[in-house]
């Protein structure tokens, strides 16, 4: 475990070096929240509820969603860069699990994001926009647990994208397509309550709704009892499925590896 903690710590410290970066990061999150707030303010106008969803539920949704998504930043191009410049060779020479090492570094940067991006932005949002408090302290706890599972789903998807580096030279385009899917289908652009029935039917069979929407619905009390349990199981099932896909690609990819030059 020690080496992995060390990787996470190193990433955390490296992030601290770029102070300007995190000030801009907080500003960026606040700006996004403000823009969304303006849009929904205009949409709601004088009506208190649309499709049975109140304005404060929507604002709470996008504040948490934007906060989480700006915290869960994963560099999809990490493996590609290593493969292309051949430094993957050095990575393979270390007695650590390469996958575990990537995860450790990502967790390091996410802890950083949580402390220096999510929490400050949340404060700003609470003061200027207002956010619903969680329905109960249990809901807050379950929200946190579900958000962590959501992160692992997002991470597994990113890992699968990164694994394509062994077959294609440029992962950027695949990463872009993935990001569009994540943004639209996870509800971080348009809350999934407002999605047309047909689209919702499709989303049900994808892992995207399990990333942000499940934790947020738990937070808002939009889901109760058995439903929560079922959705937790759904998240875990997705983690398992994506893990297997990622693992198969990782094993095959290693055999495909060509180290350029030298």
């Amino acid at each position, binding site marked *: 475990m*020690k*080496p992995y903690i*060390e990787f996470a710590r*190193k990433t955390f410290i490296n992030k601290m070096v770029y102070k300007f970066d995190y000030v801009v990061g907080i500003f960026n999150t606040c700006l996004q929240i403000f823009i969304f707030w303006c849009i929904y303010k205009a949409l709601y106008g004088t009506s208190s509820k649309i499709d049975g969803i109140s304005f404060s539920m929507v604002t709470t949704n996008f504040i948490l969603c934007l906060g989480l998504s700006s915290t869960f930043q994963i560099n999809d191009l990490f493996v590609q860069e290593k493969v292309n410049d051949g430094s993957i060779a050095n990575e393979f*020479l*270390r*007695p650590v*699990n390469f996958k575990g090492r990537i995860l450790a570094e990502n967790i390091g940067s996410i802890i950083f994001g949580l402390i220096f991006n999510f929490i400050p932005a949340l404060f700003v949002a609470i003061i200027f926009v207002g956010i619903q408090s969680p329905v109960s302290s249990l809901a807050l706890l379950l929200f946190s647990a579900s958000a962590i599972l959501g992160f692992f789903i997002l991470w597994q998807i990113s890992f699968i994208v990164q694994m394509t580096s062994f077959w294609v030279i440029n992962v950027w385009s695949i990463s872009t397509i993935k990001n569009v899917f994540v943004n639209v289908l996870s509800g971080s652009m348009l809350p999934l309550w407002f999605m047309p029935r047909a689209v919702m039917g499709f989303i049900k069979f994808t892992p995207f709704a399990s990333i942000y929407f499940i934790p947020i619905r738990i937070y808002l009390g939009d889901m109760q009892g058995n439903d929560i349990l079922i959705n937790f199981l759904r998240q875990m099932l997705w983690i398992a499925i994506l893990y297997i896909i990622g693992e198969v690609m990782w094993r095959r990819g*290693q055999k495909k590896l060509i180290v350029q030059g*030298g």
Partner: protein
Amino acid sequence: MSKSLIELNGISKTFKISKRSKGIPSMALNLFHPKYEYKKAVKDISFRINEGEMVGFIGPNGAGKSTTIKMLSGILYPDSGHININGFVPYKQRKEYVSNIGVVFGQKSQLSWDLPVIDSFELIKHIYRISDKKYEENLEKFTELLNMSDFINQPVRQLSLGQRMRADIVAALLHSPKIVFFDEPTIGLDVVGKEKIRDFIRYLNETQGITMIFTTHDMQDIEKTCNRLIIIDKGDKLYDGNLIDIREKYGTSRQLDIQFESNINISPIEHVKVEQLDGLKKRFIFENTKVHIHELMSDLLTKYKVKDLSITEPDIETIIRQIYEGSIDIV
């Protein structure tokens, strides 16, 4: 037969290279019908290396040296054949195996570009779970031997190539590996830098008994460090044996330059090629297996008045060049 530390049996590796054609129409066609070329980088190579041996692994560019080193260090999968090193199959048990080895790639640094050298070492300490005592001991010993104390706190990007290479070598040795692979550790270094690294490598082998494989293009590296030599070319193993043997077997040609006092004509001698050099100098070229040198010399010395003479044998570099070019046939 005693068990060898490193065993390779019939290792092959083929790379698939996509074939690009010229011109837009054929390029467009290529999109739908990609053509591939298969390049055999390593063909059926086998060898054994015992504990404590120091082996030079040489061959021209593109011979398959680095590919072999990468398979030995567990980075690449061989297409066929078996590798067993210290009881491990490198590419299958990579994580457990790599703690036993150290690898220095002369062309790829494993140090963090922005961080001081010592920070990279600290990270390595944690990755390999090196105990504090061993880490301090090794660090102190190696910094002293390689004179690194004056730049150990500098960021890697500010180091000269020679300094960086020394830091990279130490980085590969901190965890006291049993086996070390050096892939062109002296590339691009000046004479003094090369000499320092050779001395250090020899020291490691002699005092610590570390088994080493060493690839290089500089034959002096090999001459000054290794006893055994493996030559490969185009993926085939050409030679595997003693460095002294190669000189005795293939370095048999001799060149005798004689300056005579007067202009003379020399009648043809069997197996000896005579060349006229400028002035009164003549060159006699022969194989020392066919011509007895003392007979030839005493013959010449008694018949003619000799002012000066010198005899040269080919250096190892020339022999290796002739092997690469195919003018020496190795069976």
